[in-house]
């Protein structure tokens, strides 16, 4: 059971602007495509597909499956200004680990939106009874790293010259883990 009854949820940013958080629907394809186009290249490095192509984003919107990937969008007016996605495996040895990806529009950074999105995903992670949240961030994205750390993520490792951006340049990848409360209740044999 996916705990989505808390949405839509309105939050207030540090500049008093109001933003609504809610799960992505198929109708968000155009808005998401516009949002992704305004992001700096480095923020899009982790995507497996070319997200500048509208049909790629339309494909995502048509095949939404909240059980495996739950995208929560931040909407200001009629514009998408942020997204956080929680990826989960339904079976296998990583089924209690949630992978987190957060994207924030450049003009909505440093207003507390990123931190609010992290709070949101921590809440969902707890509701899904995950043991860990895992975030991978390119080291240059220092504001994101600091925000994740302030919200309880711990740097697990830094891979040097590990990932390449879309131009082929190498970057360090920071892996951060957030232990969830369920982990403390586990019985170890």
């Amino acid at each position: 059971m996916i705990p989505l009854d808390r949405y839509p949820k309105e939050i207030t940013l540090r500049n008093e602007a109001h933003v609504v958080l809610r799960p992505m629907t198929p109708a968000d394809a155009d808005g998401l495509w516009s949002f992704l186009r305004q992001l700096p290249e480095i923020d899009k490095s982790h995507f497996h597909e070319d997200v500048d192509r509208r049909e790629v984003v339309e494909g995502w919107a048509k095949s939404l499956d909240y059980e495996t990937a739950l995208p929560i969008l931040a909407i200001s007016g009629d514009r998408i200004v942020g997204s956080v996605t929680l990826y989960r495996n339904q079976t296998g040895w990583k089924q209690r680990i949630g992978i987190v990806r957060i994207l924030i529009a450049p003009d909505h950074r440093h207003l507390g939106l990123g931190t609010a999105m992290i709070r949101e995903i921590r809440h969902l992670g707890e509701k899904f009874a995950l043991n860990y949240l895992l975030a991978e961030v390119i080291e240059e994205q220092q504001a994101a790293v600091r925000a994740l750390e302030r919200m309880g993520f711990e740097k697990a490792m830094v891979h040097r010259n590990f990932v390449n951006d879309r131009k082929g340049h190498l970057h360090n990848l920071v892996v951060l883990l957030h232990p969830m409360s369920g982990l403390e209740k586990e019985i170890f044999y």
Partner: protein
Amino acid sequence: MNCSICGAGHFPAPARGKATPAGERSCPYQGVPYTELRAGHDQLYFGRWRRTDATSIDLRKAYQQLERLLHAIAVSIEKEDIPAARLDLGKAFEALHTAGPGEEGPEVRYLDHALSYAHRVIGDLLHEKGLPPHAPADFAEWYDAGEVPFREDW
């Protein structure tokens, strides 16, 4: 003397504080949600115990204030469905117990950790109500704060 509205000991310097038309200074926390928790947090955040010349008395006082703050937070989250906040509050109590009280006063590092966890829980409470996070820097002028640590938000 503690403020009658928020219970905190702000306005330490006579020249500080905003003048009201009646010539009296108002409490900066008046009307803000979770007044007691936010003021209690800031009193510690800007407290003497964090200075390099802090005495063991300052540290013990901070320990007791922090204990009271954590108990007040525990009451506030009791009826809220915020598991992440419960986890952080547990960590805050754990850090507080690790801190001391100690013969020469509680250990600053762990008091600091406990206060950080408390700040995160207050943030969770505000987030659940759709409110912006609590930023102590917004209230710095009401305390005898020499320098506010820079904290970049995201």
